[in-house]
């Protein structure tokens, strides 16, 4: 977990670490560029490209007390879009965290998700939750939900969301999410609200988004 799991909250934070940090970005060979489309026709199944050759198994991030407690509550805790370098392209929180905690979660999710390869599942245990994630080109779309929630439903919810973004931004690429970050929030709110799936029809969502786009 590269230290992110060990630091205490207390001693940290001379100002928050950056959520978006663009400078000095280096892409590993074989990674799609930021400007590249994220929804390539051949990106179909589970996760990632074959280039992502991470070797050994990830350090199973069953954080402290990774108890599969079945509370019966099930909702989305947060949605993250990160690139391979760990830069956050969207962070949507459905419960209260303070800023340090958010930063810590972002780092942990990145550490947990990026070490997995295409042969792994799209699910990772994460603290008392699980992350359902899917990789599109250089971007990881991650949804954190409760352990007893339906994995495949969220996996496809991610894809549904990406297809909407792709349609809305006409072949969406990472840069679209950077420059139109305020619009991405609108898309999210149309499809997910209060940690629940709000609308699943791509047609309806896009119709609404185009209507909003036309407003001044």
């Amino acid at each position: 977990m590269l230290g992110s799991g060990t630091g205490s909250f207390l001693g940290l934070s001379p100002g928050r670490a950056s959520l978006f940090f663009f400078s000095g970005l280096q892409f590993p060979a074989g990674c799609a560029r930021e400007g590249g489309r994220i929804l390539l026709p051949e990106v179909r199944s589970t996760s990632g490209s074959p280039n992502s050759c991470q070797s050994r198994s990830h350090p199973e991030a069953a954080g402290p007390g990774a108890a599969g407690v079945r509370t019966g509550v099930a909702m989305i805790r947060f949605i993250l879009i990160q690139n391979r370098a760990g830069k956050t392209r969207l962070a949507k929180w459905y419960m209260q965290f303070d800023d340090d905690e958010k930063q810590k979660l972002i780092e942990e999710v990145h550490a947990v998700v990026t070490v997995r390869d295409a042969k792994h599942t799209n699910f990772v245990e994460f603290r008392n939750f699980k992350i359902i994630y899917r990789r599109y080109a250089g971007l990881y779309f991650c949804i954190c939900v409760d352990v007893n929630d339906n994995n495949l439903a969220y996996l496809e919810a991610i894809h549904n969301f990406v297809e909407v973004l792709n349609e809305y931004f006409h072949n969406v690429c990472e840069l679209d999410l950077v420059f139109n970050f305020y619009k991405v929030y609108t898309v999210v709110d149309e499809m997910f609200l209060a940690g629940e799936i709000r609308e699943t029809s791509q047609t309806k969502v896009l119709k609404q988004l185009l209507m909003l786009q036309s407003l001044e």
Partner: protein
Amino acid sequence: MPAVSKGDGMRGLAVFISDIRNCKSKEAEIKRINKELANIRSKFKGDKALDGYSKKKYVCKLLFIFLLGHDIDFGHMEAVNLLSSNKYTEKQIGYLFISVLVNSNSELIRLINNAIKNDLASRNPTFMCLALHCIANVGSREMGEAFAADIPRILVAGDSMDSVKQSAALCLLRLYKASPDLVPMGEWTARVVHLLNDQHMGVVTAAVSLITCLCKKNPDDFKTCVSLAVSRLSRIVSSASTDLQDYTYYFVPAPWLSVKLLRLLQCYPPPEDAAVKGRLVECLETVLNKAQEPPKSKKVQHSNAKNAILFETISLIIHYDSEPNLLVRACNQLGQFLQHRETNLRYLALESMCTLASSEFSHEAVKTHIDTVINALKTERDVSVRQRAADLLYAMCDRSNAKQIVSEMLRYLETADYAIREEIVLKVAILAEKYAVDYSWYVDTILNLIRIAGDYVSEEVWYRVLQIVTNRDDVQGYAAKTVFEALQAPACHENMVKVGGYILGEFGNLIAGDPRSSPPVQFSLLHSKFHLCSVATRALLLSTYIKFINLFPETKATIQGVLRAGSQLRNADVELQQRAVEYLTLSSVASTDVLATVLEEMPPFPERESSILAKLKRKKGPGAGSALDDSRRDPSSHDINGGVEPTPSTVSTPSPSADLLGLRAAPPPAAPPAPSGAGNLLVDVFSDSPAAQPGLGPSPEEAFLSAGPEDIGPPIPEADELLNKFVCRNNGVLFENQLLQIGVKSEFRQNLGRMYLFYGNKTSVQFQNFSPTVVHPGDLQTHILSAWPSPAPPGSTPMIPVPRPVTWPLRALHSLR
């Protein structure tokens, strides 16, 4: 920069973002940001009133800067002003700024309530949705107080647009989760249930979530939702793949709505009405049938969506646990997935089968897949899949297959990932104990565990084998012989030395007849390990030696020589030194009779729940122990091996968590009337947490912290550790779980001591009905000089300490220390 052109409208924003992206270093970025902040500040402070567009642009830039990780200390008023704009784009940026930044500035909320109120009343669906989304995103109590009453009205109003209803339903859900007391049930609830019939599937999708949440707290009020959900589900499931148009996803009709409906049904027992039940069973069968049909598309989206419904259907079947036919069909379906080429499906099938294994109807069907599961354990690449396979083996284990499963798990242990070794060790230990028919197998298994993964064998495991050997005289001789042999290995794990030392000290006499394991041989074997061991092990070995003096008088001289050695008598470690001195003296001054009495064989341990099981539960949560908790499935085995059998002479005093050496704090019911007040007091401190718990609302945070009631109720397992802190130091954390932290600080002067208890609320909601009580042992009660101040709960931010001074005489504190 292809996207710049798409940043329609706010050219300045796009330029700024480009600038930031072009910065070569962090310093350059900060410089550029500071320049921009200065610019924005001057614009906001300028005499000239800004037009809406500029205001929007600058607020948006500020938001971007905030998202980069910089603090923003101005611009909030401008954002609030944007809310009252009648242009959508300006309003949207205003609301966005507030939703994102509100954590850091809750003062804002009061300022915006008025704007939200206006938008809610505007009858403009776009503005209403913006306002509702803002409430849903912030979800604070203040907002609940202001709007909880309005939103149900909007939700059920006949003239609300569909999109507004969707947002209102989820907005209400958020407020209800945050502060259920602010959302009174009423006439609207019945109408909410009828939203399940709504024409608009999006409204249904949102409403189901709301109903699922509400019905958990008020199942009776929402009972009618069952039949409505069933009929809705039935319409979806039986529809052709094109019927639902917009809501068909890769040829699967309304997958997410189906999943939500199936989850809603899991809040209730099977429907009583035969017609409803019949219709539901038909649905479930249809889903199972469809799983067998050839796929309508090769895309993974199609199969995922279809299987999302299938897995939720299986969850419901398991939840009902009353339809043997469906359970077996579910099991067969999952069996097919076990060999599927998609890792996701294999993983989910293993996970789902784990719960099926605990149903009496499907346990046998699950067992037929044992070979596949064992194979998964050996060959899966993803450690989480292997872990699920291990879980499933554990869950499907019974007396018929215990030996096979245990030996497979032992084999796996040799190559298992470090992350899951300890858990596998616990599971093997539990299975071996539970399903042991002859205890020599059990002893062999545990010693194998120590041999293969000694580092991962926790105290609980080796304590347990000692308990069992002590309690069962039929296995003692075998155990002594086996450990003796195991200790012959040139390198053996320290845990083996511990177990060996203990067992030979107790039962070494049973193998002393054999010249190959005569007393001197036993002693020199153990003593050859002595110097390489840790202090704790050496201390244990010293006790073994004194026991040897009793068992084998002929070793007395040798052992006394060892005890007398300078390295023991003057050992830097006080424990070792004390043992050496005392044992040496004991062996010299006491008569044989006295020695025989003092060093008598340990009496059998009282029966109790396996401490290993408790540990596994702690590690994995309540679900983990299911296979063993479920006595109904295999009652015979429970009777046989349910616990260590006490010999008739033992008084069976249940003390569930007291450990072998009695070092740990006992939980309240079992706590003896201890001479020291410490036990009582500490226990009282702990019992505060369940007292505080019922007052907590069912906030999302509660779930995040995963503190189910069963999770925080009982005294925490680390109690002993915390007790030590409490006894040994003047301040520290006494207790901590996900909800609450209790710290103590104490100071003493002359005969007086003062103690502060700090209750830190770690949730983000207020504790209600929070009332700590302290029970004072004995005469302390009369000496309390001051009770606590008002029982105000901790604030909503984490870790606000509330000091609670208690003063009492030092005399009592002596007994605490």
